């Protein structure tokens, strides 16, 4: 994998329940199809762009840290004020966090 390898630390918090949902992902340990899909999702997002919290209360908060090529990048985002690309990434990570643990 080499330089293509990436790691993600993900947490969804907040929401009415306030329950935390977490995942750690290492591309080297993902099935190839999943790693490819996740890489495509990552390529499309701009993690640096700040996401201001939207109005209201009880929204989900997403904290995403990505390590690629020895560098960490991080972003905090909220339901209701995310770009469609970032939404697609968080949807994937939520589904991954929910999956029975065998590949993370």
């Amino acid at each position, binding site marked *: 994998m080499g330089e293509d390898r990436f790691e993600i630390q993900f947490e969804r918090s907040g929401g009415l329940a306030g329950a935390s949902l977490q995942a750690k992902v290492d591309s080297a340990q993902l099935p190839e199809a999943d790693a490819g899909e996740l890489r495509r999702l990552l390529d499309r997002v701009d993690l640096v762009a700040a996401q201001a919290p939207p*109005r209201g209360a009880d929204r989900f908060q997403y904290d995403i840290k990505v390590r690629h090529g020895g560098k960490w990048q991080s972003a905090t985002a909220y339901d209701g004020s995310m770009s469609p690309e970032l939404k697609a990434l968080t949807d994937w990570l939520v589904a991954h966090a929910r999956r029975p643990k065998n590949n993370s």
Partner: protein
Amino acid sequence: MRKTCTCFFVQPAVLEHIVRTGTPEQRDIALETLGRDHSIRTVRLQNALLSDFYQLRSRSLVEPTPGTIKRVIFDAEQSENAETTKVVWNEGDKAVADPAVNEAADGLGATFRLYWEIYKRNSIDDRGRNLNAVVHYGKNYDNAFWNGSRMVFGDGDGEFLTRTTQGVDVIGHELTHAVTESTANLAYTGQSGALNESISDAFGSLVKQYAAGQTADQADWLIGDKIVGKALKGKALRSMAKPGTAFEGDNQPAHMDHYVKTTADSGGVHTNSGIPNCAFYHVAMAIGGKAWEKAGLIWYDSLRDPRLTPDSNFQRFAQLTLRAAQHHFGAGAESKAVTEAWKAVGIVLT
């Protein structure tokens, strides 16, 4: 020398012309006439305003009288579009086949009733605002939230959360976020955010208790007990009586010594709310009877106190609850209950 003014109906423009160009004598007369003219105009203006006032009053007779509920339920049809325009239920409609719609309408109604019948609050903004709710938001969406204009309800995934409209306390919780927004507008971060959350839990629980006619000792003091799924491994989302015991992994503190510092969840707003939640529970239990009558009134008045500002912390709110208790009930058992309840969670009042 001034002469007694003989009154003519002269146009103000002509009088002004005389003031500017006339002899000193003419000028005096013109000025005096202008002054009187001005005062007459003032009286006329006042009369006009008064008559407008009466018209406005009679006009308001055809508007909804205060305390008239107006609910609209929208269906997001499993999209994540909270601004959907698809209306599935309007005020006055009969129950429909979709239970989420009926539950939302009933929950909004129960919340409206508590605020109006007990606190004389005319809807969430105290000005009779419509209550708009969206059901079936998202696919298996494990959340309900207030988006600044609508109450939005997900169906849950059935494992962690079930259909969120099933909890009348959940609906009361979300609507109370709107009440807080139009009163103290507590910032949704850190302690002010946890206070915001706690106020939603307190009134969410009161909505449930009021609807069931329960006294404080009969109430379960749980939040979301009707919407937890098996995977959450617990009886509710939160326990106000025993914070930190609602489900496996519930890390709510019940004392300032265990305040959780975190950047997740807007600074732990759903976690540290356990501290004021527990204080409210203690106040209600110590006073006894129906919690909305005294404990709820003390909390409601504190929420509306102008000294409660967006950046207020627990200490500020606690102090205001004591003032409110003293104002309503003097220095007796109620005030003592408030002081003791905050002391039990690590907040000392002066």
